[in-house]
């Protein structure tokens, strides 16, 4: 598992370097997200959210 302070995977660094400072397109946002998910990094996924909703811990 990646520990705190560990470097970002090179694949992701290269992906962002290629894009530069501009905003990502929808397709690029999706590709970046899939890359982060494949590396086990925090990224957009609702499956954990759905599981959390179902586990009943949240009453508020």
């Amino acid at each position, binding site marked *: 598992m990646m520990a705190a302070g560990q470097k970002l995977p090179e694949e992701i660094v290269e992906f962002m370097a290629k*894009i*530069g400072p501009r905003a990502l397109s929808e397709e690029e946002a999706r590709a970046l997200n899939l890359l982060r998910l494949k590396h086990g990094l925090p990224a957009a996924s609702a*499956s954990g959210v759905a599981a*959390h909703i179902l586990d009943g811990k949240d009453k508020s």
Partner: protein
Amino acid sequence: MAGTGAWQQVLEGDSIDRFFGHFVLGDAQREKILRDFPSADLSHLPATKDDVFKDLNDIWQRRGFLTPAETQAALIEKYLPGADERLTGFIRDTELSRNKPEAVTGYLSKEHAYLATALGHLYARETGMPMTMVEVDFSNMGGTNDYFRLKLASEKAVLPVDIPQREAELLTDLAVRVLSAGMTADIAALHPDARIVPIRTGGDELRILITGAGTVAEQLALSDALHAHIERRVAAMGLQDHAHLKAPEDPRRAGFGAALAVQDMQMITNPGTLIQELDARITEMKMQIGMMRLGLIDRDAVAAEAEGKISVGLLRMPLGLSFDDTIDLEIARAQKNADKAAEMLRDMNPQYNPELPQGIAGFKDYAARAMAQFGQLAVAVSTLPEILNTDKLGGRDRPAGIRPSDSLERRYVARALEHFEAEGIPLSPAALHFLKLSVRGLAPEDPSAQVMMPVGMVRMIDNAAADAQDFRAQMEAAGFDVDAALRAAGLKGVQQVMPHALAVSVHNLAGLNSALGHHNADIVLRHIAHEVIGGSVHAAGVPRQARSSFAMAHHGGGNFSVLLPAGGTDGQGQSWFASQAVIHKARSEIKSRITLLNKTPIAPFLSKNGGYVDQDVYQYLEEKNLNTFGDIRDPKERSYTFGEDIIKGRVNGIHAVVVSAAVCYDPQQPDTGGGAFIGGLRTRADAMMEQYRSAMLHQLHKQGRLEGGYTPARPFYAAFNSYAMGGNAPAAFILGGADGKKIQAGEDMRAEKQGNEKPKGPGGRG
């Protein structure tokens, strides 16, 4: 500890550089103090920014991470050892009053955003302690305003148009408050020992810094928990389903909500690209959450997530199952969970569950119960010292020695000095320096444009209105050459001498952000504020000297306001009065400078002004044919109706419109005041910008240079636009374009594009 300039490598590092600079006296300042006060002891003061950096590290070691105001208070305390407690207490209260929560979210206001972020990143790098940044973006606030308006109209049995927009907005604000307060409460519950610094960074954006969640597993859990809580609260407020304002046809974007991205601040590889990376992650999350509300899943994302979790050990493959079978199992499980979660959310939603309290009353009831559970956030806040706890610093309340043209900062400082003199509290040169530094913070600065926050402009307008009568009465006694100044200003008498305010609306800030990124767009925004607008006002004859200047505020996006004092004296001792003549000159100058900006090559400009431009960026600009700022693409397709057609297209490049008004109202009267005045002026500027864009589309369409197309008109749009473009046009439309010329409706409609006259190919950019 890293060496000199380590702070410049962090996110928003230049804000730390400026912050450190406030504590260091320049050589000239030191010499002057020692000349005036030969026995002054300056030995406790930092000689360099590195000294401040070391002291900050000491504070972090002793007290942990602090808010920017707490940090400044701690540093000042260190640099004033043995000072009178009445002074240090006054400074501490002044500093901590700036932690007063922002009205809607209860978070710190935007003035703290960049410095808090930079300090957070630097803290993570220097101390090696966990620091997590949560970037949050609300969804569909505009559509939620519309939803509440319709709901209120339905409950009151009136037409939606009879419901004041503000009434609906206040309900949306309440929903924002529930989610904002809920998030910090959730974080505190998950990480009870962490320091939490939440900031409202924009109209629909938040940033939360947390000294915790240092492992990836904790960050994943935090993201899931926060999103799950948000979804439950949105459902309980009955706000899951109404149409999205900008995408009403897309059910995944329906409803109100918030999505977020969790970022380990020790894992920031490139500060120059981080914000757009987080924006992209949030956009993607919004889609995933929108699907979940519908009971759908993104199979690719679920598969990638399962693969990632297997690779980092957060998910084990069941015995006897292959990798592919495990992924299939996870997809099936995710689908089942999404179905159930959607059903559960519907059960919690009063729109689907008739047993729950219904309507606006039910919504308010839920919000009150939720807020009662959340508790208060642990950020130190003080009440402002009584002497400074006023907006009234003009007219009869103007401090002694303050002129009507003096800035808000100077007024607050004068009021504080009056207090110390009256109390007989002596101030050493160092004490005076830090007292001024602290009190100046009461005229807060917008960190992106580096001009005042809107709250400062509201106070300045009130003070200017109160000052105007005094100014007119006293100007002859003050040695003004009244007749000459009246002639120069084209005014007929002293009764016409009054402060004036401008609202400037600049088009395509979104395009700058999208094409060049947040950091580079800020650099252009500051150029527009200081060189285009400020430089133009100065060129129109309003001096820039500290004691006789104009005030400027940034209202978000491309919106600015400027206040010209009723008059003053320029650098050559000449008297001048604010007038339409001055404003006309300023407006012409703004047009010229925008034209020049549109012709300015992007890469060299950014490179010269500290932008993020490396070889990849050069290549990207070249590939996209982004040579000058006039090439910056409008990210939004716009439309207007002309005859029977709807003309659609983009207004590329940078453009500006200006509206102005004399500041003449009685601040004692109800429903008047700086807020209402500047709000009204900004509304006119917004309306005028809409008209300007339509005129631009029309012109580009006629010239065959429109990037877009046109479709037959639909009756609704035709009716709407006939109001906007026809004889009942709003007042701002009649006022004219940014160049001061009248824009006419119909066939003769013309609008001059400001700058970027480079010919374009048909149907798009060249």
